[in-house]
C-alpha cells in the first residue's frame, strides 16, 4: 500500500500513514477551510488499507498517533470518523490503538480524547507531553 503523506500547513495537520515503516500519525493544527475536502481522502485511504489487509489475511498491529495542537470543532467530527474507522480494523481482528497526545495541563484536549475513546470503542493510550 502506497503511503499517504500530507505535509502540515498553517491550518492543516501533517498526515503520514506509512505501512512499510509502521508510522501512522496526524499532528499539528487542524482547521482546514473545508474539513470534508481535507479528511475524506484520509478516510478513503484507511478503507483501502483495511481492504488490502483483509485480502492478504494480515493482522499486523499498529498505533495511530494523534498529536493536535489546536483543532476546530468540525475537525473533531472527522477525528471521530477516523476513530470509528479504526474500530473497523479492530473488529476484523487487527489490533490498532490510538495514542492521544496532549500537553500537560491541557484538560480540554485530554477530555476530548476520552470522549472519542468512549464513542468509538477503540482503545486509547494517553501520552502527556511535558
Amino acid at each position, binding site marked *: 500500500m502506497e503511503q499517504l503523506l500530507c505535509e502540515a500547513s498553517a491550518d492543516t495537520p501533517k498526515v503520514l500513514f506509512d505501512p512499510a515503516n509502521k508510522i501512522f500519525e496526524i499532528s499539528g493544527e487542524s482547521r482546514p477551510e473545508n474539513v470534508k475536502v481535507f479528511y475524506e481522502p484520509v478516510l478513503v485511504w484507511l478503507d483501502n488499507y483495511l481492504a488490502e489487509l483483509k485480502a492478504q489475511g494480515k493482522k499486523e498491529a499498529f498505533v495511530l498517533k494523534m498529536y493536535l495542537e489546536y483543532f476546530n470543532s468540525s475537525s473533531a467530527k472527522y477525528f*471521530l470518523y477516523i476513530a470509528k474507522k479504526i474500530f473497523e480494523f479492530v473488529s476484523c481482528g487487527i489490533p490498532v490503538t490510538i495514542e492521544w497526545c496532549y500537553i500537560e495541563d491541557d484538560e480540554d484536549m485530554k477530555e476530548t480524547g476520552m470522549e472519542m475513546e468512549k464513542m468509538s470503542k477503540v482503545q486509547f493510550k494517553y501520552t502527556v507531553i511535558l
Partner: protein
Amino acid sequence: MEKHILIDFSGKFQFETIEFLLGQAKEKLSILEIKIGLRKKIVNILIECLENIYKYTKFGIEGDYSNINFFSKISLEKTNDSFIIKAGNTILNSDIEKLKNKIEKVNALNREGLQKFYQEIINDGKISDKGSAGLGIIDIAMKSGKPIVFNFTPKNEKNSFYEIKIEISENIN
C-alpha cells in the same frame, strides 16, 4: 476594572483573516503569565468564533455592504480575572430564530447536558457543504463553562447584526 486589549478587528473578513488574527492572539497570549491549558482554551474558543464569522456572514440584498455597519468584528481582551471574546457579523433575519434557539438551548444546559448534546451532534449530525458540523456553539459553551451572551441588532429589511460575548475565567479547570 483594568482592561487590556489583545486583539481588536473590524472589517471585511476572509479565510486569511483567521490566520492573521490567530497569529496575533497566540503571540500576545504567550507573553502573559497564564497556564498553557488556559491559553489553549482561549485560542480554541477564538478559532470557533473566527470560523463562525467566516462561514456564517450573509448579506441578503443587492447593495453596498462595504460600510462600517456591516463589518465583521472580533476582539479579545483581558480583565482582572478573565478573558472576554466579542464577535459580531451580519446575518440574514431569516436565520435569527434558529440561531437564537440553539444558543438558548445551550445556555440552559449544565455540563452533563452539554456533553450529551455534543455527543448527539457529533455522532448523528451531517457535515454541511461548507464543512460545518454544527458543533461550534456547543464547543464554546463547554470550554468557557459560562452562558453565551448574545444580541441581534436589525440593520435593514433583510439583515441583522449578530453579536456574542464569551467570558473565560482565569480560574477555570
